[in-house]
């Protein structure tokens, strides 16, 4: 009786281990932060890409519309692939695109914009990457949707694609 009970306990234990490891191995081994709740946009002051003057977040997000914040850099290859889609998104009147130029060389960034076009209503500079951290970003490119209440409601890691553009259009309609 005692022996049977021990075998039963061992089987239960091994099954438990099997389920844990099976589930663990099926999970992706890279972590991407998710937005659980709507977060307020950070309060910050940043340098304007064109004028070099300092702007605060209240001024940047002053209008009562949806904003798209796109983190980009001239050295980032995926940013080139998403750029034509950002140019299309720019035609959407209900949103304003804000570019956040991440750890970039200013002249290279200007060349990038001259070559591929400027989809952004405003570009701000993030020289040391700390502004991106305030937004909760950890790479480039990343795109955030900010609603009329100045809350981050969605974020997209990596370059945006046609499906994401449609999703953005649907959310910001």
């Amino acid at each position, binding site marked *: 009786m005692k022996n049977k009970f021990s075998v039963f306990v061992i089987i239960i234990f091994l099954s438990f281990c099997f389920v844990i490891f099976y589930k663990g191995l099926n999970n992706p081994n890279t*972590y991407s932060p998710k937005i659980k709740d709507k977060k307020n946009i950070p309060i910050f002051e940043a340098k304007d890409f064109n004028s070099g003057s300092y702007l605060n977040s209240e001024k940047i997000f002053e209008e009562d519309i949806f904003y798209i914040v796109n983190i980009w850099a001239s050295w980032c290859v995926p940013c080139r692939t998403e750029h034509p889609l950002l140019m299309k998104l720019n035609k959407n009147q209900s949103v304003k695109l804000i570019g956040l130029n991440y750890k970039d060389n200013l002249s290279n960034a200007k060349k990038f914009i001259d070559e591929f076009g400027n989809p952004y209503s405003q570009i701000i500079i993030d020289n040391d990457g700390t502004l991106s951290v305030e*937004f909760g970003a950890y790479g480039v490119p990343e795109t955030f949707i900010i609603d009329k209440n100045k809350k981050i409601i969605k974020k997209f890691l990596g370059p945006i694609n046609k499906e994401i553009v449609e999703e953005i259009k649907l959310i910001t309609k």
Partner: protein
Amino acid sequence: MKILKIFIILILSIGFSNLKSDEKNDELKNKILKNIRCLICQGQSVHDSESEFSSSIKLIVDRKINEKLKEEQIYEFLREKYGDWIIYEPKLNKNTYILWLLPLLLFLIGGAIIYKKNNIQK
């Protein structure tokens, strides 16, 4: 002369106390950075990593320490931005209570078994 001596001692003591507080801040910074996971190179802590993300986090932690934020407040700031996973030491909550309580439970069960066996042998 006496006034000069007092003045020199005062200057030196201010200098030493500044050095000491810098040392304390560095210790705290290293402790925090070792407890933050680099989200780009996920096997390393921010302290050991040289990625762009880690260098930005190092700057942020430095800034927060200078703003006199406490260790837990800095973790809370990072948790709010990136979730619990960014901190190596998980917080006790509904998702992690098994992780925290299981070793204690196993210890108690083990202790009970040993105690029972000893009693039987006696």
